[in-house]
């Protein structure tokens, strides 16, 4: 009898031990001491956290070349936008050292800077022992570098600068008798009306309108900026500007445009849906991130490759387009600065950036040499390059509130215009309510 109990207890204990043995997973792998020589960091490993998009996936795919050369193991954690944004701030704020390098855009950087979760990289750039002259940091477009900087210090390396342009289906334009792209928003509305033929399953325009991830705010801001909107310029209460004329006008325009000339189900459109609707020649035009261009020109997925027109609708003032910048940043708590910097240099080198542009992974290289390279000129039409450069030139990096409460303000905006579009509230009421919330948020 005794033996049976002991056996039973013993089995249970063994099971528990086995199960608990599976628990012993730390978040950081052990680091052997760096060896001297050509590959000083061989054998070490870093972890990179990126959002799921074509260019970052390309980096992931090409990294084995880097690993072979340097002996550094690179682990990737990649998440789609909806899961990426909360995880970025959650992980960095916990200071657990989960990630060494992260991708982030100017929507998140204010939080990163304010929280002290990323570190300035000037000390690496300016140290000749860590950075060879051929890397040439000055090559990066200054405006983009400014967006990745804070209080005069450079924190990140811009990897993907973009802006919004108009993209339209030249064939559908010609069929409707439209010779040239619209010069302003009123013409855009008139064009949309002319191109809207639901009986043929062709629709006037598509813009991002989905509430998920606050993506509708992005397209709304594009319209708003053309109408002269700004979060801070000339505002007595910065950021609480949603009840002012440009914002109200923008919402009226945005709602009217989509309501009358958008495809069915427009309220769920995110940028993938917009892209596909254009590729399938279901919708004739859009204003969106110029990065959509390469995808529209890709014959393997787009029916309208080669028939796309590019144009910038000018707005008031100097900064009338959005200027989102995606960059790579080094976490403040990383213990692997050396290997992380090595990878950063490789990922943002002239060769890699040009390769990304050549293979259509990014439409706008962040290095001047990229734009001037032969590969780029051969790949993209002059019309596209001109429109892109013009848009980037007038890009406002603060198209999204660059303060820690930024994401929340974007969310408030997103809900308001979503309500306006779905007629849950009148435009005035929705915008006023949103503005009141922002005031409260900022303690005005």
């Amino acid at each position, binding site marked *: 009898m005794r033996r049976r109990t002991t056996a039973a207890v013993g089995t249970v204990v063994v099971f528990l031990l086995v199960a608990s043995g599976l628990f012993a997973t730390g978040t950081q792998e052990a680091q052997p001491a760096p060896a001297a020589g050509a590959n000083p960091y061989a054998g070490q490993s870093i972890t990179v956290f990126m959002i799921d998009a074509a260019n970052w996936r390309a980096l992931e795919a090409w990294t084995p070349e880097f690993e072979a050369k340097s002996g550094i193991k690179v682990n990737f954690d990649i998440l789609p936008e*909806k899961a990426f*944004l*909360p995880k970025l*701030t*959650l992980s960095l*704020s916990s200071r657990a050292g989960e990630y060494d390098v992260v991708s982030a855009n100017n929507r998140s950087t204010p*939080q990163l800077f*304010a*929280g002290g979760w990323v570190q300035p990289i000037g000390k690496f750039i300016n140290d000749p022992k860590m950075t060879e002259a051929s890397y040439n940091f000055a090559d990066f477009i200054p405006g983009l570098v400014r967006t990745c900087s804070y209080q005069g210090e450079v924190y990140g390396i811009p990897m993907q600068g973009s802006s919004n342009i108009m993209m339209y289906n030249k064939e559908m334009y010609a069929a409707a008798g439209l010779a040239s792209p619209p010069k302003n928003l009123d013409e855009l509305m008139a064009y949309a009306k002319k191109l809207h033929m639901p009986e043929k399953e062709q629709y006037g325009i598509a813009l991002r309108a*989905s*509430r*998920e991830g606050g993506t509708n705010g992005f397209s709304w801001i594009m319209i708003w900026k053309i109408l002269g909107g700004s979060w801070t310029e000339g505002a007595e209460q910065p950021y609480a500007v949603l009840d002012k004329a440009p914002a109200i006008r923008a919402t009226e325009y945005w709602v009217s445009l989509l309501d009358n000339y958008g495809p*069915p*189900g427009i*309220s*769920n459109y995110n940028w993938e849906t917009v892209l596909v609707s254009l590729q399938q020649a279901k919708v004739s035009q859009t204003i969106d991130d110029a990065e959509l261009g390469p995808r529209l020109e890709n014959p393997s997925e787009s029916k309208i490759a080669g028939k796309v027109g590019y144009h910038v609708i000018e707005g008031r003032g100097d900064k009338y387009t959005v200027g989102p910048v995606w960059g790579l940043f080094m976490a403040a708590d990383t213990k692997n600065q050396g290997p992380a910097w090595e990878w950063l240099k490789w990922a943002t080198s002239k060769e890699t950036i040009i390769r990304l542009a050549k293979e259509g992974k990014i439409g706008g290289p962040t290095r001047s040499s990229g734009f001037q390279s032969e590969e780029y000129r051969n790949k993209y039409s002059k019309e596209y390059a001109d429109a892109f450069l013009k848009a980037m030139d007038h890009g406002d990096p603060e198209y999204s509130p660059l303060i*820690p409460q930024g*994401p*929340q303000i974007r*969310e408030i905006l997103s*809900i308001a215009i*979503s*309500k306006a579009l*779905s007629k*849950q*509230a009148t435009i005035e009421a929705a915008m006023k*309510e949103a503005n009141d*919330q922002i005031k*409260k948020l900022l303690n005005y």
Partner: protein
Amino acid sequence: MYRSYEGSDKTTFYLMIGVPFFLLVILTVGPLLYSAFYISLTNWNLSMVAERRFIGLGNYAEMLGNPEFWNSIFNSFYQVFGTLALQLVIGMGMALLLARPMRGMQVVRSIYLIPMMATPVVVGQVWRMLYTPDLGLLNYFLSLVGLPGPDWLGNPKIAMLSVILTDVWLTTPFVTMILLAGLISLPGEPYEAARVDGASGLQMFTRITLPLLRPVISLAAMFRIMDGFRRFDTIYVMTSGGPGNATETLNLHTYNHGFVFLNTGYAAALSTMMLLIIFGFTLFLILRIQQSESV
């Protein structure tokens, strides 16, 4: 001789209950109290840690004055009780059908249970696909009978109904099973007597079945209310609380504030409020049930 074992018995029992209980207390009560009595009384924001300070009931005051909060309360109640009403009716119907003697009833019953077990996230995805306006199955079937297919998840007036429908699909089997158990254990005599008296099927149902089943129905309702307030996965996957905030229940509202905006303090206050509401409600229900049973 038996009595002398009482002593060691007690220790054993204390250990057996104590160990898991201790674990649960640390992992549930502990965090709950920490959240309610500390975090919710600060203005803690995970991204602005330096400014953390004690603000007493400030979060609660702000919450009660915030229309978004009341909207999420309304949505939660709408979702829970909307689902409950449909489930009780459909569940009762299915229970009546499944209580009949039929060949292969075992198999039929086990097949019926399947939706209950499916992973809620997967269920959310499936229904999201079904609800797609121009490419989804639902609107296709509607078009076959000549009806226009609405934008199930994009139209704020019916988005919540769509969410409720998915929930009903997911959890009605549970309600059915409980009601079925009750049905099967009903005594036969009242029905014999009623048949002799010439009562119709409907009369027997309303005058005998329903009253006798009241405790079982209350039990099912209680379980479903408890579970209903916890519903997160399906809504998160299908609408994330949209369009606007038409489907933003208290659960999602708290998640957004806590994990997206990182307003830890405010979110803790929201959670505490949510727990108070649910506990209060369920307690109220339990007392009502006990009262009616003792009558």
